């Protein structure tokens, strides 16, 4: 039995504690939400050490959390949640990641798969043609630097005011797609230069657009509230982030914080955890720049939503009212935000880092759209392209335990290199097509890296999230058309 395993305390079937005694410097314990089966894989990687490293960051509250899809990241684990006191805590760009506000949105259509099946190849082609991957190619917009500053400060609102979307899209987006406190002056010119050609582009890697079909409904009431009415109904998933702009913001501030740490007497076990006090000039500047990148990502997903609506209209020749494509919700899963939470019975303002984790606020929370007040915030968990994706809701348990957070995806188990060794992209696509899933991708290689076998079975991850109570299953969709950059 290795050190990691013997040091873990099983709290119940889905919660394992990493005690402070696991490693010198831990200020709080770690908690992993997982099952006994998945725990074995977590231990094989360096995840436990990474959760413990995060527990050493100044001002961390309660616990360093790992969500059910946790896997080995760089610095923070992916699937990590850490809350820092805003008075004496730090903010860490590595706790947000390079792809700031990588996130996902779900749109519900009024179409049934059986009725649309014959249009599927042309629909997938239309989506592939109209939404550029942006890798080696530019988006269709030409922005000047003033426009760029507006994108950074206004997010989705900028896009909708320019005619790219519907006014009601805003209220169905986390933070209405516009973080307050975003000041474009804190974003470097280099970041803006990277952002200009890429606005309205998908990106590659694990980013995708998926036409899904509702396959199971677990909670009729919540599903109906979200406009998800029946098995066979088509939905659209869009998974993307802040592109090169966000990567540059992260680079700029990781570097500046790594240099500033000595000044503040902060030492971290891994340089990628570089951080600065939230109330320092470095901390405040990063928060504002990161909010700008988050707004860029929301504007980006909003633009792609507009392009997708046009592509549907073109491919199946129906009007907006017949197609639907109403925004169910849009959530960030790489972000840090200032939120109010109870710690030891006292309300505190905290900076919640969610790195590959989704906000999961409960019913009646003031920060969720009024229409979802009765059911809780929609939680969107995309799976891999050969299996399922889930729609869940936030819960009071999440609020009490994990600072209102849950998982964000299936979680990788195989490296990209290992995934490519086992299956070629061409074979994987043929296999998907035999299952009735149409795929259009920029390269076979990028598809092979994302093959189902590279991921945990999302059903297992969701089961842990559901049974531990940190979110609640509403519906499941399966892919019928996938676009990859």
């Amino acid at each position, binding site marked *: 039995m290795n050190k990691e395993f013997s040091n873990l305390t099983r709290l119940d079937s889905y919660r394992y504690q990493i005690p402070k005694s696991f490693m010198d410097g831990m200020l709080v314990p770690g908690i992993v939400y997982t099952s006994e089966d998945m725990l074995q894989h977590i231990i094989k990687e360096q995840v436990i050490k990474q959760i413990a490293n995060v527990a050493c960051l100044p001002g961390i509250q309660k616990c360093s959390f790992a969500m059910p899809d946790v896997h080995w990241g760089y610095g923070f684990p992916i699937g990590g949640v850490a809350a820092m006191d805003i008075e004496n805590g730090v903010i860490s760009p590595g706790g947000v990641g*390079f792809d700031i506000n990588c996130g996902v949105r779900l749109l519900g259509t009024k179409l049934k798969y059986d009725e649309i099946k014959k249009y599927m190849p042309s629909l997938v082609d239309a989506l592939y043609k109209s939404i550029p991957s942006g890798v080696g190619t530019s988006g269709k917009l030409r922005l000047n630097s003033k426009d760029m500053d507006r994108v950074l400060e206004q997010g989705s609102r900028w896009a909708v005011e320019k005619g790219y979307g519907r006014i009601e899209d805003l209220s169905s987006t986390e933070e209405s797609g516009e973080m307050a406190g975003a000041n474009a002056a804190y974003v470097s010119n280099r970041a803006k230069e990277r952002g200009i050609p890429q606005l309205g582009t998908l990106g590659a890697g694990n980013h995708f657009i998926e036409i899904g079909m509702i396959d199971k409904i677990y909670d009729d009431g919540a599903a109906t509230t979200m406009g998800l009415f029946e098995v066979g109904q088509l939905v659209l998933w869009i998974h993307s982030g802040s592109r090169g702009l966000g990567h540059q913001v992260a680079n700029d501030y990781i*570097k500046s914080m790594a240099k500033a740490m000595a000044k503040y007497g902060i030492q971290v076990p891994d340089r990628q955890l570089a951080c600065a006090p939230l109330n320092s000039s470095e901390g405040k500047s990063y928060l504002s720049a990161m909010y700008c990148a988050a707004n860029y990502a929301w504007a980006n997903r909003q633009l792609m939503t507009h392009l997708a609506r046009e592509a549907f209209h073109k491919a199946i020749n129906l009007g907006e009212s017949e197609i639907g494509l109403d925004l169910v919700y849009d959530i960030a899963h790489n972000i840090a935000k200032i939120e109010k939470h109870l710690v030891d019975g006292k309300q505190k303002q905290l900076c919640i880092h969610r790195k590959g984790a989704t906000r999961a606020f409960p019913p009646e929370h003031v920060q969720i759209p009024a229409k979802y007040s009765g059911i809780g915030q929609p939680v969107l968990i995309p799976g891999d392209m050969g299996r399922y994706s889930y729609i869940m809701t936030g819960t009071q348990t999440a609020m009490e335990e994990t600072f209102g957070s849950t998982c964000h995806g299936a979680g990788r188990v195989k490296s990209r290199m290992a995934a490519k060794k086992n299956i070629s992209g061409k074979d994987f696509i043929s296999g998907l097509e035999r299952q009735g899933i149409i795929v259009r991708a920029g390269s076979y290689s990028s598809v092979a890296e994302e093959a189902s076998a590279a991921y945990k079975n999302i059903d297992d991850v969701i089961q842990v999230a559901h049974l531990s109570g940190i979110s609640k299953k509403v519906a499941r969709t399966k892919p019928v058309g996938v676009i990859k950059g």
Partner: protein
Amino acid sequence: MKSNKSMTEKKFRLVEHTADIGLVAYGNCLNEAFENAAFGMFSIITDLRKVKPTVSRAISIREDSYEDLLFEWLNTLLYHLDVEGIIFRKFNVSTINDRCLSAECSGEIFDPNRHTIKTAVKSATYHLLEVNRSKCSVKVILDV
């Protein structure tokens, strides 16, 4: 002193990492290790056999340490890929010390008809980043 060893002999290897890709690059001197790290990164991105060295850029970086230089070197190349669409394949690091790096890099503007992106690299990270001056090797985890 930089050797005259041909740049066709690429010295790097990829290291398994669950979500990302690790890269270790070697050379007869630190200049070569940095060149090979850049070549390795662009080999992950695309098939470099299809890339011709038709455009070049002079790159000059000032930082406080070799580690910062490595991080910034790779990320600067990614910046040129995002903004100008250049896929670099030939690197000549003429100067490197603990304060600065100068290089001439050449490659080709991405042409979707001839090039494909195998794996998009988002950024070089500081996680497990190492510059070993005595062994003339560098290690970096790339966020992909």
